[in-house]
C-alpha cells in the first residue's frame, strides 16, 4: 500500500495549491471562490490523512520519500506521519465547519480568508515532511506569516491588529531561536539534510546551546509558560475556525519540531534537559489551567486551556527524557507515547471547543461568558457537543482526553520508581502535585464554562433570543464530538500505534518488547485501563437506571426555586467570576487580582448610592516579565539613538575611528 503514498501526497498538495488560487477568482464570485477553496482543503486534508494513515497502519518505520522539490527531498517517517494525521483530521473537521461559519465574512475579504486557509494547511504539511534545514525553515516561516495574516483578518479592530503584531514579533523570536539551533547542529555536519545532522559527538557546550535554542523556539510556538503571552491574545482575535486550526494543529507542529531535535539531532539526553522540559511543561499545565479558570472571554479560556494541554504534552516528553537518563530506559516509551496520544486527542477536542465557541459567539454576538447562560435550552445540539468537549478537556475517563493524562501519570510513576536518587523521586512528586492541580483546575474550568454558558437562565437580553446554528455547522461539530468517544473507547489500538512510533524513534534501547501498554480483556498488558469492560458496565448500569430511576418517575410540578422567600432574579444566579472566587482567593499570591470599588455620589448622601466594582486579573507574566523587558528595550534603544545624531560629519568621524582601530589591530 505504501507505494501509493507519494501519489496521495502529491494530489493533496495539488489540492491545497488549487485552493490557494481561490484568491484570484473575481470578487463578484466570492461565494464560489470560498466554496471551491473549502472543498479543496477538505479534499487535501482527507488525502493527507490517508497518506499518514496508510504509513502508520503499515507498521513501517523507515523514511519514505514522498516527493522531490528541486534537490530537496520530502519524506515521512513515523514521527512526522503522526502529526500529518493530526493535520489531516483537524483540517477536515475545521474545513467542514468553515464552509458555513466563514460566510459571516462575506464582503470582508472572504476569498483571501479561504485562500490563505489552504496555504496555512499546506505550510504545516510541508513543515512536517521537510527533510532539510532550508525547506524546514522556509515552510516554518510561511506558516508563521500565513497564521499572522489569518489572525489579523479583522484588522480594523484595534485589539485584533495589536494581538496579531504581538504574535508576529513573538513568533519571529521563536524562529530566530530555531535558526540558531539549526546553525549549531549544522556546524558539525557536511550537509543540510536531516539525515546528516547529528551532534551527538560534539562537545557539551554546543549540544547544550543547541538544546536550549531549540527548546526556546519550539516552546514559544507551543505556547509554554512564560512564552505563552501571545496565545491568549491571538486566539480571541482570529476567526473561530482559524483558532481551531491554530490550537488544534499549529501548536502540535512545535511538538513535532522539538521531538525531531530530541530524537535525531541532539544525541544522548542530558539530565537537566529532561528536568527543564518537565518543569516548564508542568508549570505551563498549572498556570494555563489557573488562568483558564479566571478568564471571562470564552476564547481566551480555550487559549489558556491549550497552554495547559501543551504543558501536559511537554511534561510527558520531559518525563520520557528523564527516564532515558535513568537505568530504566525502556519506560521512556510511556512518556513519549503519552505525548503523541495527547497531541492527537487534544487536536480533536480543541477543534471542537473552538467550533462551539464560534457557534455560541455567532448566536449571542458576544465572547463574554457572563453575557450568556441558559443556552442549553435554545441550542440543545450545540450544548451536547460542548458537554462532550468539556468532558474530554476535563480529562474524564471514557473520553479521549483521559488517555494521554493517564499515560502521563504512569510515566511519572515510573520516574518515581526509577531508583535514581531522592532528587528524581521528589521531582516526580512535584510532577504529581502540579499535574494534579492542573487536572483539578481544568475540571473546574470546564464546569464553569459549560455551566455559565449553557445552564441556568439567560444572563443578557441577547442570550434570550439565541438560536441553534445551521445544520451544516452542527454536523461539523457532531463529528469531532463522536470522535471523542470513539477514540476514547478505541484507546488500545491508538496507544499501540503511538507506542510503535515512539519505539521506532528510540532505536538503541531495550524496549518493552512485544509488550503493549494496554490491552482489552486480558491482564497481560502492562497497564490496565479496560475501556471496553467499563463501557459494557456503564451500558448495563444505564439500562437498569433507566428502567428503575427514570421510567417510574413522577414529576408533580415545576415550581420556582427556594430563594429565602423572595422571587429569584436573573442576577442572583452564580456568575463565572463568582464561581472562581474561592480558587482566586486560594491562589491570590500568584494571581494578584486587582479590585476597585468606586462609590458614585448621588444627590442623596445616604441612600441610593450606586457602586462600581471592577476586577482585573492581569497575566502576571506580561506584567512582571514582558512590560519591564519592553521598557528596558525602549530605554536602551533611545540611549543608543544618541550615536545617530544625523550629522554627516559625525558619521565620517565614526568611519575614521573605525579605520584607525582596524589599522592598529592589523599592526598588532
Amino acid at each position: 500500500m505504501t507505494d501509493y503514498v507519494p501519489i496521495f501526497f502529491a494530489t493533496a498538495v495539488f489540492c491545497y495549491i488549487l485552493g490557494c488560487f481561490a484568491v484570484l477568482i473575481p470578487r463578484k464570485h466570492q461565494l464560489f471562490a470560498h466554496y471551491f477553496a473549502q472543498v479543496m482543503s477538505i479534499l487535501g486534508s482527507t488525502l493527507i490523512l490517508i497518506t499518514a494513515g496508510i504509513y502508520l497502519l503499515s507498521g513501517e518505520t523507515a523514511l519514505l520519500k514522498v516527493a522531490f522539490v528541486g534537490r530537496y527531498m520530502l519524506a515521512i517517517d513515523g514521527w512526522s506521519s503522526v502529526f500529518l494525521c493530526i493535520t489531516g483530521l483537524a483540517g477536515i473537521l475545521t474545513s467542514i465547519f468553515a464552509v458555513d461559519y466563514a460566510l459571516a465574512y462575506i464582503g470582508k475579504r472572504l476569498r483571501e480568508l479561504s485562500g490563505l486557509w489552504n496555504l496555512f494547511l499546506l505550510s504545516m504539511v510541508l513543515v512536517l515532511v521537510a527533510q532539510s534545514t532550508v525547506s524546514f525553515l522556509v515552510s516554518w516561516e510561511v506558516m508563521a506569516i500565513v497564521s499572522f495574516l489569518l489572525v489579523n483578518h479583522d484588522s480594523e479592530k484595534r485589539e485584533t491588529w495589536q494581538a496579531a503584531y504581538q504574535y508576529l514579533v513573538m513568533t519571529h523570536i521563536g524562529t530566530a531561536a530555531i535558526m540558531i539551533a539549526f546553525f549549531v547542529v549544522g556546524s558539525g555536519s557536511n550537509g543540510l539534510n536531516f539525515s546528516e545532522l547529528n551532534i551527538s559527538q560534539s562537545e557539551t557546550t554546543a549540544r547544550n546551546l543547541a538544546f536550549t535554542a531549540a527548546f526556546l523556539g519550539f516552546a514559544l510556538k507551543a505556547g509554554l509558560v512564560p512564552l505563552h503571552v501571545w496565545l491568549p491574545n491571538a486566539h480571541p482575535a482570529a476567526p473561530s475556525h482559524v483558532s481551531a486550526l491554530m490550537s488544534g494543529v499549529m501548536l502540535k507542529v512545535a511538538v513535532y519540531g522539538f521531538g525531531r531535535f530530541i530524537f535525531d539531532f541532539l544525541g544522548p539526553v542530558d539530565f537537566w534537559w529532561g528536568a527543564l522540559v518537565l518543569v516548564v511543561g508542568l508549570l505551563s499545565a498549572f498556570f494555563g489551567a489557573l488562568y483558564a479558570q479566571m478568564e471571562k472571554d470564552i476564547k481566551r479560556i480555550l487559549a489558556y486551556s491549550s497552554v495547559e494541554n501543551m504543558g501536559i504534552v511537554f511534561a510527558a516528553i520531559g518525563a520520557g527524557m528523564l527516564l532515558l537518563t535513568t537505568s530504566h530506559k525502556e519506560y521512556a516509551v510511556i512518556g513519549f507515547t503519552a505525548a503523541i496520544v495527547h497531541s492527537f486527542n487534544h487536536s480533536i477536542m480543541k477543534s471542537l471547543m473552538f467550533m462551539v465557541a464560534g457557534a455560541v459567539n455567532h448566536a449571542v454576538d458576544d465572547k463574554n461568558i457572563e453575557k450568556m447562560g441558559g443556552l442549553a435550552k435554545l441550542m440543545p445540539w450545540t450544548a451536547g457537543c460542548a458537554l462532550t468537549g468539556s468532558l474530554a478537556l476535563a480529562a474524564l475517563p471514557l473520553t479521549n482526553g483521559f488517555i494521554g493524562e493517564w499515560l502521563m501519570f504512569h510515566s511519572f510513576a515510573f520516574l518515581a520508581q526509577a531508583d535514581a536518587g531522592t532528587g528524581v523521586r521528589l521531582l516526580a512528586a512535584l510532577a504529581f502535585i502540579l499535574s494534579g492541580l492542573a487536572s483539578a483546575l481544568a475540571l473546574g474550568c470546564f464546569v464553569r464554562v459549560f455551566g455559565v454558558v449553557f445552564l441556568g437562565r439567560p444572563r443578557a437580553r441577547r442570550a434570550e433570543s439565541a438560536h441553534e446554528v445551521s445544520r451544516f455547522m452542527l454536523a461539523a461539530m457532531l463529528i469531532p464530538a463522536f470522535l471523542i468517544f470513539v477514540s476514547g473507547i478505541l484507546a488500545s489500538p491508538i496507544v499501540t500505534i503511538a507506542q510503535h512510533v515512539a519505539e521506532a524513534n528510540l532505536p538503541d534501547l531495550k524496549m518493552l518488547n512485544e509488550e503493549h501498554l494496554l490491552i482489552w480483556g486480558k491482564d497481560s498488558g502492562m497497564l490496565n485501563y479496560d475501556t471496553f469492560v467499563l463501557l459494557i458496565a456503564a451500558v448495563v448500569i444505564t439500562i437498569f437506571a433507566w428502567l428503575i430511576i427514570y421510567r417510574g418517575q413522577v414529576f408533580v410540578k415545576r415550581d420556582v426555586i427556594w430563594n429565602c422567600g423572595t422571587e429569584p432574579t436573573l442576577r442572583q444566579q452564580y456568575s463565572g467570576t463568582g464561581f472562581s472566587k474561592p480558587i482566586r482567593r486560594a491562589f491570590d499570591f500568584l494571581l494578584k487580582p486587582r479590585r476597585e470599588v468606586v462609590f458614585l455620589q448621588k444627590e442623596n448622601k445616604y441612600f441610593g448610592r450606586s457602586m462600581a466594582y471592577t476586577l482585573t486579573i492581569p497575566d502576571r507574566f506580561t506584567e512582571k516579565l514582558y512590560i519591564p523587558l519592553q521598557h528596558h528595550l525602549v530605554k536602551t534603544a533611545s540611549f543608543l539613538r544618541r550615536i545617530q545624531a544625523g550629522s554627516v560629519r559625525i558619521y565620517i568621524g565614526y568611519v575614521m575611528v573605525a579605520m584607525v582601530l582596524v589599522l592598529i589591530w592589523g599592526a598588532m
Partner: protein
Amino acid sequence: MDISFYNYFLFPFLQMLLLAAFAPLVSGIIKKTKALLQNRRGADITQDYYDLRKWWKKKTVITPYTGFVFMLAPFMYLLSTMLAAFLLPNMMSNLTFGDIFVFVGLLAIGRFFMALSSFDAASAFGGMGGSREVYVATCVEPVMLLAVLTAILKSGSTNIYTMALNNGNQINVAVVLACIAFFILLLSENGRIPIDNPDTHLELTMIHECMLLEYSGRLLAVIHLASMIKNMLFMVLFSLIFLPIALPLAIKVIITAMGIALMESLNNKMRLFKIRAYLLATGGLLLLAIVAQ
C-alpha cells in the same frame, strides 16, 4: 460462557451491587457511633435505608429553568461511583484489574456533573456549592495523587490489587504517615468534618449538600445513595491499601467508620479558606513519607 465473562464481568458486577447494598449500613454505623459518642441514643443503624425509601417514594419537584443536565447529573454521579466500585480488587476471583488512576478519574465524572447541576437551577445557593466543591477538589487532588504515589512506591505497581497485597507486610514511618494522610483525604473527599459538615443545612456553610439543594424525591435518593457508595469506596480503599493492620476487610471498614465518627465528634468544621493550609500540611506528611520510603 467463557470463564473470563465471570471474572471480568459478573463477579465485579455482583461485588459492585454488594457494595451498594452495604453502603447505607456503613453510613448508619458512622451516625450511630457519632450519636453514642455525643451521649445521644441516635437513630437505628438501618435508618439510612428508610430515608432512601422515603425519598424514593416521594414525588419530584423541579424548577422551570432546569434542563437535561439537571436530570442527568444524579445518574452520572451514581454511575461514576458504581464504575469505580467495579475497579476494586475482586473478592471472588484473584484478577488484577483496576488501575488507581482510572479509579480517581472515574470519581471525577461524578464531581463534574454534580458541580454542573448546581448551575442548572439558576439559584444563588447552588452555584455556591459547586464553586466550593471545585475549590475543595482543587486542594484535594494533588494531595490525593501524592498519597497514590506513596502506595505506588511501596508496591511497585499502579494496580489496586497489587497494592492491597503489599499492604501490612511491613510497618514503618512512611506507612504510618501515608495512613494518616489518606485518612484526612478520606474526610476531605467525602465532605466530612473538618472540611464540610454532612449534617448541616444552613445554605451559607454547606458544600456538598448545597449542590443538591434543588433536588427532591427520587433524584435526591439517587444522589444520597451515590455519595454513600463514594464514602464506602474510600473507606474500602483506605482499609485495603493504607491501613496496615492484618484484619478482615469488613472489620477494617467498621474500624474506619468508627474513626470517622470519632474525628467528627472531636473536631469543628473549618473555615473554607483554611482548607488550603490544612491540605498543604497533609501534602507535607506525604512528601515526608515519599522521602522516607
